[in-house]
């Protein structure tokens, strides 16, 4: 998994309904522990998916394996992104080609300016797409405009990446990065957690604005609140490293009312994944 000079693949135009992300029977472990035990999931352009499940069921692990976190070893199965083997790419190449992960716990990086970080990453993605790079001035204009989407104060540009940001500020910074990188597949891991009511609306609006007929979104969440604002096409429930059940938005409502026990008892017999 080394970073290559030549771009792995150019971005061809996408039609609504194109298969963007295809996960087949994915098994992954950390050290000796198997955490993902056969996850299968297909995500098409124009779709919004929600992934729910108890704490520790493996949702973040799935998202990190897709993004290429080195702590996890894939022991079986595959992930294809637009028909290409994603597992063969370094994390930076996955990001450049349009896969985005909004972290459940965004990382603080002391001493690295948020502005420079955003500029370098935005330009890495632009270069991959064959767009011209933005110099510091052009980027600053661009980032200020984009910050308006998440109503973030430009003062955050001057600070170190996520350092001392409140929980909600970190999440907004994640959505800002997503807006700058314009991913084709965005996985947002509990981006709604820790947000106050106004911030939740702002973030939900931001995510909706970025969800296009040619992109796809996977929202990992514990709460119906977010799904009230963004109606998912599919709702998946994860348990013990597998997707146990798939339904539509009503499944999320049922979970909100009844919890997870009934699903685990029924054991996913009525899965309706397309």
């Amino acid at each position, binding site marked *: 998994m080394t970073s290559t000079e030549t771009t792995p693949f150019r971005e061809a135009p996408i039609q609504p309904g194109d298969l963007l992300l295809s996960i087949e029977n994915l098994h992954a472990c950390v050290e000796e522990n198997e955490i993902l035990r056969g996850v299968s999931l297909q995500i098409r352009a124009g779709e919004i998916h929600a992934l729910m499940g108890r704490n520790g069921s493996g949702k973040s692990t799935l998202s990190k394996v897709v993004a290429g976190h080195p702590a996890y070893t894939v022991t079986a199965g595959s992930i294809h992104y637009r028909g290409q083997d994603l597992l063969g790419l*370094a994390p*930076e190449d996955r990001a*450049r080609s349009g896969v985005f992960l909004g972290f459940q716990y965004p*990382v603080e990086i002391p*001493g690295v300016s948020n502005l*420079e*970080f955003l500029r370098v990453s935005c330009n890495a993605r632009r270069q991959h797409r064959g767009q011209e790079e933005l110099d510091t001035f052009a980027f600053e204009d661009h980032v200020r405009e984009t910050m308006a989407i998440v109503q973030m104060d430009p003062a955050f540009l001057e600070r170190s990446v996520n350092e001392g940001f409140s929980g909600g500020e970190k999440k907004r910074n994640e959505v800002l990065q997503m807006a700058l990188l314009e991913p084709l597949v965005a996985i947002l891991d509990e981006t709604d957690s820790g947000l106050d009511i106004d911030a939740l609306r702002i973030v939900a609006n931001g995510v909706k604005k970025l969800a296009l007929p040619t992109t796809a979104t996977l929202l990992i969440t514990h709460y119906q609140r977010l799904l009230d604002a963004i109606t998912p096409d599919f709702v998946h429930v994860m348990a013990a490293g597998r997707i146990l059940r798939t339904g539509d938005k009503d499944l999320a409502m049922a979970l909100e009312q009844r919890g997870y026990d009934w699903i685990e008892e029924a054991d996913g017999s009525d899965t309706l994944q397309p």
Partner: protein
Amino acid sequence: MSNVTQSRPRLWLETLLQVLAQWSGGGAAGQPAGARDWGLPTRRSEAWRFTDLRCLTQLDPTRLHTGTAAPHWPEAFRQAPSGQVSPRRLSLQLDGRGHWLSPQGEPPPWPHGLMPLPTGDIAPGQVLRTVIPSGTLLPLGAQLNGVTPGPSLGLQVSGPDPVHLDLAIQAEHAQAWLAPHVLLVLQPGARLCLNWHVAATAQAAVLPMVEARLGLGAQLEEATMAWGCPGAAFLGGSFIHQSPRSVYRRTNATWGWGLSRDEPFVRQSQGQAETHLHGLAVARGQSLLDTHSTVYFDGPAGRLRQRHQALADDRGHSVFNGRVVVPRVAQQTDASQLSRNLLLSTKARIDTKPQLEIVADDVQCTHGATVSCLQADELFYLQSRGIGRDQASRLLQRGFCEEILQRLPQSALLWPSLQSLLETPVPDQP
């Protein structure tokens, strides 16, 4: 430093002392008294156990000279006539005869609040003796500085408005031996911002020595950028005497030297003063960067904030020894020391040691030391945003350095040499 058994270093030192004595015009007979009583420290001495002097003793004493080159003053400094950028700022560079002149070569026009020390007021070596206990051997840099003849820059600072003094040394010729001596007396309430820029691009030795006496409530902010090259040696000695309510802030960044040994000594003569020591050492290649600091509290309620950060890569080696002396008279001392280290290669080395000598019982003294490599989670976060691994690693290293560099004054950041510390600016292209 008593072990002088190896003959080569001893021969080297004797030749050096003879040469330096000739410089002062005295021939071998004019050798400073006592110079024969000391020798070069060996690695058998505890304070030198990690630090090899080979880089210094590779200089050829018989070919030494005091030649300097014109420092590459940043534009903002250069525009000003007569070295004076503003009425309260003075920029000086060391010339080939050990004098400090303005970049235009003239003797300095003294800004308000700064003037040469009245003769007979205080002699070189006098502050030093109030800072380190009598009977202790001087640190090597100060010892060598002391036996090198040459004028010293003695300055008196007065008035509450801050005065800025920029001192630049540029060694570009092989076998240069530069041992400037600066003596500062800050009157009560006076404020001085002293910025050093030391650069050596040839096999040379730079041995600066600073003595400073801070009166009641005086403030000295000293910022140093010391940038060397593989054959160059830096041996610094600072002796700071602090009166109550005075503040001494020292921030320094050191990189590139074959050998650097920096030994600041600070004494809060009656406690009740503030000392801030912030150091950054970046040891790449085969660089050996050593800081041995000592802070004495001779009275109650003194405060120390110390942070030393070192990065070691390739075969680089960083040594830090932070000594803090808190005797019984120093009740209510509040001292904290932190040594943070980034170890980036298996052949690099970090040696860090706190040395807290605390006798007083009602004190708050903390210390900590960490050695780590780049954080995997930080690297992954950057990579997950499309930033290549090498570039991510450079960003994180820079981030580590920034934590100290951000304390340097804006004017220090104008020097282009800083780019060599941060390597090439992070390019956008992966």
